């Protein structure tokens, strides 16, 4: 807002062409609140209209150009001044001149590459947004519209189980097994703990999911650990030969896909922490990394054609079933 100009001012409004049909996704803001934003996938076109409404009808609006940008950027909280833009597209909407009445401009960013998932974390934020700007001599008028991007993956070809024997010499030996090493966000962790030697007095056992956000490089690496889940799997004292089952549903927890070295700026990794607690509150634990990925949704009629293509490139369970029934037919 300019308090000193007696001239014209304007309001900008950015509206997507498919605002009625496009799905919205919930995303956490920096202060912890949850908001809904339009959901996009890699390769989808971003198109819409920029409405410029003159505040005082009749007065002219002089400007140095009107443009709209599509930006994907990484912002490190400890270094707010430097935004690292990994996607930066611009479309000019109007050459320098003057507007005598409110106007609407069309724009289209065709098949935009969106290589990373939107992420708001403890020390870093990755966001995508449209920014419409009316350039003026003294002060620009601009409006930003955030969107959310999800990255989809397929069922991995190789997904070995995690099986290990660990312990403290002569005190505690256990063998733990998790059915997979890569889980999608709505998956189930199925596993078991087998006790080979128990010479300590165990009171209970739990599985924790730990999220580790790593920012910075070289000597300035900073890890932020957050325990997302604590799930008790055993209450009481086990003896040798006891098998304790694990069944942990991931859909109930707020998690993101595993992000490794995003644009060389940050990583978000997840670990399963198996914790045994003895009668004197001593904790024995074993941490193991798991890879989380996002599964595409089942294709729905209401999705845009492009979103359907994006989903089909990465099979949801519906398509996997279709492909398998096909394979069954072929083999019989």
């Amino acid at each position, binding site marked *: 807002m300019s308090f000193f100009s007696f001239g014209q001012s304007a309001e900008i409004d950015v509206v997507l062409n498919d605002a009625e049909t496009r799905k919205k996704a919930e995303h956490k803001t920096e202060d912890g609140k949850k908001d809904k934003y339009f959901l996009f996938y890699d390769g989808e076109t971003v198109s819409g209209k920029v409405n410029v409404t003159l505040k005082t009808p009749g007065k002219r609006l002089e400007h140095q150009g009107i443009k709209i940008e599509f930006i994907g950027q990484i912002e490190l909280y400890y270094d707010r001044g430097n935004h690292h833009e990994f996607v930066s597209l611009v479309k000019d909407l109007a050459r320098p001149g003057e507007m005598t009445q409110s106007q609407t401009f069309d724009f289209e960013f065709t098949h935009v590459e969106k290589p990373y998932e939107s992420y708001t974390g403890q020390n870093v934020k990755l966001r995508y947004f449209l920014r419409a700007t009316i350039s003026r001599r003294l002060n620009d008028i601009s409006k930003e519209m955030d969107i959310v991007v999800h990255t989809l993956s397929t*069922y991995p070809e190789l997904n070995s189980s995690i099986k290990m024997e660990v312990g403290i010499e002569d005190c505690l030996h256990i063998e733990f097994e998790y059915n997979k090493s890569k889980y999608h966000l709505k998956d189930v962790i*199925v596993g*078991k703990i087998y006790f080979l*030697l128990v010479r300590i007095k165990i009171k209970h056992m739990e599985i924790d999911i730990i999220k580790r956000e790593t920012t910075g490089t070289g000597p300035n690496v900073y890890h932020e650990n957050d325990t997302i889940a604590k799930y008790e799997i055993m209450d009481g004292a086990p003896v040798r030969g006891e098998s304790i089952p694990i069944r942990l549903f991931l859909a109930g927890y707020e998690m993101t896909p595993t992000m490794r070295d995003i644009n060389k700026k940050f990583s978000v990794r997840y670990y399963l922490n198996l914790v045994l607690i003895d009668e004197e509150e*001593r904790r024995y634990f074993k941490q193991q990394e798991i890879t989380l990925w996002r599964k595409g949704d089942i294709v729905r009629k209401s999705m845009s054609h492009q979103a359907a293509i994006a989903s089909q490139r990465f099979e949801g369970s519906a398509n996997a*079933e279709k492909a398998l029934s096909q394979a069954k037919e072929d083999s019989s």
Partner: protein
Amino acid sequence: MSEPAVADTRRLNSKPQDLSDAYGPPSNFLEIDVFDPQTVGVGRNRFTTYEVRTRTNLPIFKMKDSSVRRRYSDFEWLKNELERDSKIVVPPLPGKALKRQLPFRGDEGIFEESFIEERRVGLEQFINRIAGHPLAQNERCLHMFLQEETIDRNYIPGKVRQ
């Protein structure tokens, strides 16, 4: 491979447990009792000893059933040895009760029955907490404290397991 949605969430196969393991005595039996306080000596040279009885089936202890007599300063010695040599956080001992050792008290001071009982409970909690710690079980001082008749303060500190 059958439908992945079903196979992925099936319980993993586990070995059946041997019944002797399931119903036999557990391998983590360790109980230490601190009891039978006795005050020995006369006048200003009096002190209280407690019986410390260890019953266990842990192979690291040479004797499955041992009994020794210890006084408060022996417990202090053990705490200091462990704090110096092992990496564990040693739990606190019950208080030294210096005030109770001052003259002109209305009661028996440190030989007051209720005080001795309070101290006995604290010492029992202390030794049970310590003796169950896998790292403390590795220290020679703990084994000497629990299972040798007298504490040799000139012993050579060291580890038991290799």
